[in-house]
């Protein structure tokens, strides 16, 4: 199962990480590693684009929560882009819509 992770630096000061595929306990470590890599490179304003994600479980949510925590400790932030109801629903059920800023486009997240 492939997890696509594409980094886009065309929205300074934001780094956009586009995720494609299924995020579960098997693939979430790769997402975590990529976020660790970006933070260690000094990228502290990150937008994670979830519009290409077909499936997201609690492990994926945990990675995003951990990412937000680390970025905030560096005075940074982690915003999300998501328009898919089935993915948004997972954030709503867990109450994480109040933790993350969720936007409908990269432009809105970078605005």
């Amino acid at each position: 199962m492939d997890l696509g992770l594409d980094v886009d630096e065309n929205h300074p000061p934001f780094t956009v990480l586009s995720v494609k595929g299924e995020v579960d306990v098997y693939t979430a470590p790769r997402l975590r590693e990529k976020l660790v890599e970006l933070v260690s490179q000094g990228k502290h304003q990150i937008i994670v684009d979830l519009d290409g994600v077909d499936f997201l479980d609690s492990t994926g949510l945990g990675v995003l929560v951990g990412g937000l925590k680390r970025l905030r400790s560096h005075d940074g932030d982690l915003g999300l882009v998501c328009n898919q109801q089935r993915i948004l629903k997972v954030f709503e059920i867990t109450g994480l819509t109040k933790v993350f800023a969720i936007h409908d486009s990269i432009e809105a997240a970078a605005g």
Partner: protein
Amino acid sequence: MELILELEIPARPEYIAIARLVVSSVASSRRNLPDDRIDDLKLAVSEACTNAIEAYGSIATEGMGWPDDRTPPKQVPGGNGGVTERVRILVADDDEKLEIKVADTGPGFNPDDLPTHPPVTDPERLNFERGLGIPLIRTLVDDVEFASSSAGTSVLMTVYGEPLEMHPPEDLVPDDAD
């Protein structure tokens, strides 16, 4: 109840995608459920399988943390990292409902003893990356029962909804059928 699927997967993370795909395909072929309910079931099955595999200690999630809070993976006595351990998934249905049981033979846990997360508005909430699976399961299916002992854990999830009516292909129906 009629048993319609019996599936056994190795207790390893890479097999969970297969389990959730098979169960959701069976559910959509047997029950008259909207797509969003099938998606809910798919996620619930995935979470239950993740917990089952974690019960064997074959997911080192606690060891895959962020570099500054990495803790050793939990060790399960007698476990061998999912090489021989299995997770069983049973699906049965009747006229009213679909039942999915996910069972492991790990050391068991008490679902009522899970730590409570701080409110989402509390900055401390960000210290909790795990523990969302069981609350998700409880929300996503109509009914859930956990049975756990030192011999293992089973999660029985129920989704109510009428069976999908089976219509024979038109060319098999006689023209004068009334």
